């Protein structure tokens, strides 16, 4: 089996079977990451370029480790703002990289659609590592992997995504994938953070967190962008935290076996109480660990190496 597509840009276009294939492929690499020598030769001779226009430590490092454990050559390329000032477009930058025979370009960009634009312009495979508010498909895939690892079945699974859905690419990718796999997706947050028409994507919106968390199996907290306080999306961090922060009391409203997720980095004491982040229901560090295996699976399937 392989992914019969050049790029991984969005989870809207991925079928449930393709998602399952990625998760199953990640399983076999999960085993590799547990070995003493965490390396396989699957991508030897292939070149992976991490093209990150936005600062990111977690995602970039995760992709870098994944590629290295597959024995690919990895280049990290973080164009400074200055090259944009010089008039080089994203496509120019990418074509330069392509000219150096990059097989896979992993792109992080602040503009929605950047990965799609790039994919149309280059022959290399493009993996979207986050484009604006649009999508972050590999994050959602590692979230799915983590849920599945806990023995949960997606069909009928109740998942609450809490926070600023409007400005969240993680939320969008998770909504698309979870709805596709048959889960019940609840979006919890103030109306100012719910994008127009989001119910039509198959999710249900709750403004009251206690109602939204009732009997859920998974709580996905989104990071609150603290700098948005001045944008009239919420009055104060204090009030936001009181209304939409995940406390130990609120965890008890959910199903007894609930797991708590967060794409990181977390704001302790803002959207998530420290005792929840550090509790047994928290799988936040599992997400990080699984990220490497899932990205190994994706790189492997995209490289056509199998």
């Amino acid at each position, binding site marked *: 089996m392989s992914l019969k597509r050049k790029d991984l840009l969005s989870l*809207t276009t991925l079928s449930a079977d393709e998602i399952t294939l990625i998760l199953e492929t990640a399983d076999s690499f999960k085993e590799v990451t547990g070995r003493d020598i965490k390396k396989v030769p699957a991508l030897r001779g292939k070149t992976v370029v991490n093209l990150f226009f936005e600062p990111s430590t977690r995602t970039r490092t995760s992709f870098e480790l994944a590629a290295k454990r597959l024995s690919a050559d990895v280049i990290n390329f973080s164009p400074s703002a200055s090259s944009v000032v010089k*008039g080089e*477009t*994203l*496509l120019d930058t990418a074509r330069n990289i392509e000219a150096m025979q990059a097989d896979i370009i992993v792109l992080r*960009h*602040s*503009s*929605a*659609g*950047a990965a*799609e*634009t790039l994919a149309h312009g280059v022959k290399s495979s493009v993996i979207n590592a986050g*484009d*604006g*508010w*649009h*999508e972050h498909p590999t994050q959602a895939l590692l979230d799915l992997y983590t849920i599945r690892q806990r023995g949960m079945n997606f069909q009928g699974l109740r998942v609450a995504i809490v926070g600023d859905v409007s400005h969240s*690419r993680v939320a*969008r990718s998770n909504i698309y994938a979870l709805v596709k796999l048959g889960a019940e997706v609840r979006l919890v947050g103030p109306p100012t953070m719910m*994008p*127009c*028409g*989001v119910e*039509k*994507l198959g999710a249900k919106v709750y403004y009251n967190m206690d109602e939204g968390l009732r009997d859920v199996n998974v709580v996905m907290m989104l990071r609150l962008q603290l700098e948005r306080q001045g944008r009239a999306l919420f009055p104060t961090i204090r009030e936001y935290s009181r209304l939409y922060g995940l406390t130990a009391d609120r965890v008890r409203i959910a199903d007894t076996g609930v797991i708590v997720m967060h794409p990181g980095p977390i704001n302790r004491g803002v959207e998530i109480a420290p005792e929840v982040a550090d509790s047994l229901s928290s799988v936040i560090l599992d997400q990080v660990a699984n990220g490497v295996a899932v990205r190994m699976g994706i790189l492997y399937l995209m490289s056509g190496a199998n």
Partner: protein
Amino acid sequence: MSILIKGGRVLDPGRLVGTADVLVDNGKIAAVGPNLSAPVGGRTLQANGKLVMAGFVDLHVHFREPGFEYKETIQSGSAAAVAGGFTTVCCMPNTNPVNDNQAVTEFMLERSRLAGLANVLPIGAITKGSEGKELAEIGDLRRSGCVAISDDGKPVMNSLVMRRAMEYALAFDLAVVDHCEDLHLAEGGCMNEGLISTELGLPGIPAAAEDVMVARNLSLSELTGARLHLAHISTAGSVRMVREAKARGIPVTAEACPHHFMLTEELVRGYNTHAKMNPPLRTWADVQAIKEGLRDGTIDVIATDHAPHATQEKQQDFTEAPFGIVGLETALPLTLGLVEEGVLSLEQAVQKLTSAPATAFGLNKGTLAVGADADVVIVDQHEQWEVDPTKFRSKSRNTPFAGWKVKGRVNVTIVGGRVVFETGVAEP
């Protein structure tokens, strides 16, 4: 030199519709009627089966000069205009420097004279630097040749400043043109706000950003009595409010652009930067409302908002790419599309390109009356062609209509009695 246009179907809405000859002499329309005889030493153009109309008047173009000559110049913009049948174009003041003073206005008029193609009429800024704070020298702008005032693209947000501008403009009988957009509501947006913007993860511009400013401007026009012209309205709400305002006698005129009656926000999918304009492409329901507004006369004028941008600017990612598309060379066939669709009669369509815009700004244009300036177009209504941006006269190629198979083509354009554009017309 004189020109006789023989045997065409003359469309001069409200005056004459039918087969007639048109005689042009000394820069003016000398006669319109049957069986006119060919002038001695003049030129005769056969127009059998063609439409003969007053040259089109576009109240809304951006010719980018001074300041952004790499996008367009008054020369290249004028060439695009006459190729599209537009003999008179009104240039928005968002140049660099802004056209907020006599020197810039005179420069533009001088460039237009050198180009010798279309009548290029500047629109002056409402406020100094279009910063929305202090009034520009509107009297001086009028005296130097500006035909209206607008801070297009940078709408006056301060309602008191807008009120004063409207009051002040009364002294010169100038239309005040507003690009209706509440900049706070629209902040950061780059497409219509709705399900598609949610799916694409793009910041949206709600219809309300336009509607609240339309409402404000109508109130201020009612308060001051000033002539208000609403640029490129795009929402069902705008149409509804303008209809109501007109019924109550508020002196308002409104324009719509071909892209707002031909395209919807669906076109943005795939992050197509040629679908990025301001106001943004809206929903199907908005498009229907615009068409209804055009049909029932709520929307008086079809204008292009011709907004050239260089290829590399439109090649940026969607959020970074500038707003706007070129329109002068595609407006005619797209407007004729409304006739084909049964939305407008041919006469209505022509009126919205000729006499209605002239009336909105009080221009002595847009008619084939004897004695009027000899600005004339001859159009083959049935000629089919494919839009090929590489053939544009404009310097820029930013159009979402590339590859469209359209119907209706300009054969001859005459400005001030001179043929300034022609393609394959028979001469006996």
